[in-house]
């Protein structure tokens, strides 16, 4: 077989191969120059004490050791990031699944509602953050105005160690819920109708139908949405930067915000790079765990 191959076919194949490489060259080159190169460089930087002005010196694992052992703020940022994720991910997924179930029906004008809920996804995060900052402002904000109207005492939503993080979580969930809803909508539409007919004949309740048919059938979508949302929530930055600036105190310092502060406010590029790689390994480990558990969670149609 191997020896009997006509020469013409091989050249055609290698020609195609080269054409293929040529076509992916722009994206590969862009990736290597603008992403992969800087990432490798940042990894090297994470073992130095480079602070923009001073001399760069190799200090081994000192940055990592300092972060883990001596930097009190670092662990705050880890806790805050986990708090944010633990709040955002369930809220986002439950809300988007509920909305998808609600908006799945084919009734007149449903497109309008779907559009309305999807719109925040295309709004700039900064604009979204600023608008909600106004809505949640202590003295003149809409939320506190309503609370006052009904005789309650106002809450300093964005200047409180108790309320600020939940506020940011809710605002972030409202922003991102549309995207996940669309994914769930598509998955729900793919569930074969005859399953539902069969369950109707068997006399299954609505909850049973959901639990035994809908949910198992959309697990691939749930799995994907969960991974994306978890990763997205660990990288949260924009809404924190705009709405709270990390405050009050360090109560909303999340990891990316702290990395940003270290690198571009304090110019500690070496230390910031180390923090970035710690975050990277955390996300990597989480993703690998999820990937491993996928088989147990996800039901694929045979």
């Amino acid at each position, binding site marked *: 077989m191997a020896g009997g191959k006509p020469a013409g076919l091989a050249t055609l194949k290698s020609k195609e191969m080269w054409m293929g490489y040529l076509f992916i060259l722009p994206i590969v080159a862009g990736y290597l120059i603008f992403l992969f190169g800087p990432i490798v460089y940042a990894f090297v930087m994470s073992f130095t004490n480079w602070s923009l002005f001073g001399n760069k010196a190799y200090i081994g694992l000192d940055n990592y050791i300092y972060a883990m052992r001596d930097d009190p703020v670092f662990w705050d940022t880890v806790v805050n990031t986990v708090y944010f994720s633990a709040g955002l991910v369930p809220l986002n997924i439950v809300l988007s699944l509920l909305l998808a179930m609600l908006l799945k029906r084919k009734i007149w004008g449903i497109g309008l509602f779907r559009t309305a809920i999807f719109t925040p996804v295309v709004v700039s995060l900064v604009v979204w953050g600023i608008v909600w900052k106004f809505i949640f402002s202590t003295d003149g904000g809409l939320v506190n105005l309503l609370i006052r109207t009904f005789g309650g005492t106002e809450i300093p939503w964005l200047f409180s160690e108790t309320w600020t993080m939940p506020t940011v979580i809710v605002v972030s969930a409202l922003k991102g819920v549309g995207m996940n809803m669309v994914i769930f909508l598509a998955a729900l539409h793919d569930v074969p109708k005859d399953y539902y007919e069969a369950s109707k004949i068997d006399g299954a309740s609505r909850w049973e139908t959901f639990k035994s048919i809908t949910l198992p059938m959309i697990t691939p979508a749930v799995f994907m949405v969960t991974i994306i949302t978890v*990763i997205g929530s660990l990288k949260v930055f924009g809404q924190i930067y705009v709405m709270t600036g990390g405050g*009050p105190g360090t109560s909303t310092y999340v990891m990316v915000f702290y990395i940003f502060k270290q690198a571009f406010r304090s110019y500690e590029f070496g230390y910031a790079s180390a923090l970035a790689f710690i*975050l990277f390994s955390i996300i990597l480990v989480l993703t690998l765990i999820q990937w491993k558990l996928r088989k147990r969670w996800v039901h694929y149609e045979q």
Partner: protein
Amino acid sequence: MKKYGLVLLSVVLLLGLLSACGGNGKNNNGAAKANKENANNTPSAEVAAESKEPVELEMSVWGSDAQVALYDELAEEYNKLHPNVTVKTTVIPWADYQQKLAIMAATKTSPDIVWISERMIPQFMNGGQLLDISSVKEDAAYAFDDIIPSTLTAFEKDGKLYGIPFSTPPQVVFYNKNLFEANGLKSPMQLYEEGNWTYDEMVKASEAISKPQEGVYGVKFIQNSSNWSDNLIPLIWAMGGEIFNEDTTQFAMNTPETAKAINLFKGLLDKKAHPSIGEQLTFDTGKLGMAFENVTRTSAYRDKVDFEWDIAPLPEGDHGVKMPIGFGGYSIFKDAEYPEEALEYLKFISNKENAAKVAEFFVPQRESVLYSDEYLNKFPFPTVETMKVAAYDRLAKGTIRPSHPNWVKIDEQVTLNLDAILLGSTTTEQALKNMEDSINPLLK
């Protein structure tokens, strides 16, 4: 095999996600560098025809369009005098200014001449990145002695001079006359004339004016804890507190005086005589009785608000008044390609004639300009007398806010602990102690 491929793919994608943050600054730098090189390579034909080597200078500012237009005009005029020199004015937004300049300086792509504020000076001056321009003192035509000495301190180090100020606005109290009259209160200026304008009176007036249910507040110092150095420093000074010791080797805020100042501020917040932290309420809405701002803000309110207002001097505290002045100056980066030409241009834009021109926007440091009839009578309101009493006469005794090469980190520590005080999670004394513990090592 396939599985490992997928894992690898996810690793690669994750790397991509993480690097999104860092990419920005670098790209900007690249662009700036490319721009500069471009500009250097393409001098206009007219300049090339000159016998002298064509020189292109770049000057960075954080100013408004109108201010940039004025500098462009000056550059054009300079070009007529020195046909081989062209100057380009680049705007960098205030919020990113220091950060961007630092990165440009580190990558040797900085502008030749820069606007610089008092906060930024130690970082660049101690980093040895600014050009010593002491030679201006010897230039008789430049009339260096005309510049009020108190405005130069930020640029002086070891007997050398690293820049020339162009705007040093003293801080004053803006007050809403209508709100004072409606509450039957004496205005700050009246109290001042009676010799009774103190922080105690200020607090009383604020409490009388405030009607939080109508969105009206007596006074506004700061919007967020991170603005503390703008408007709480004068209060701390007035009570006899200091930020650092004299040679900036010790943190000096952990004193009863500073605690008193901060508690006074917290008291205003607690009594709702001051808008809540984070509130974006500004003086021009007419819902603030008083605002502590730089005198240059007059141009933002003059003929632009529908209520009566005026300015008054800062109130007196336990230790009198120590007038804080804002600060904007010109410096030259050592790495500038044409340091001599840059210095000549710096002298041109800050000489008597042109200092008078830029005084359209700024508070001048040259006595000959500051006290010229032309400058004083430029605007009918606030009146010359008021401006003199509230602002100009105090300029010579004014103090530029302190700074340090590690200012960014110091600022962060004060902000964090001030938040704790305002939230009530720590006592003022404990928070000041915490500040001291975390800031003193930064001053070593």
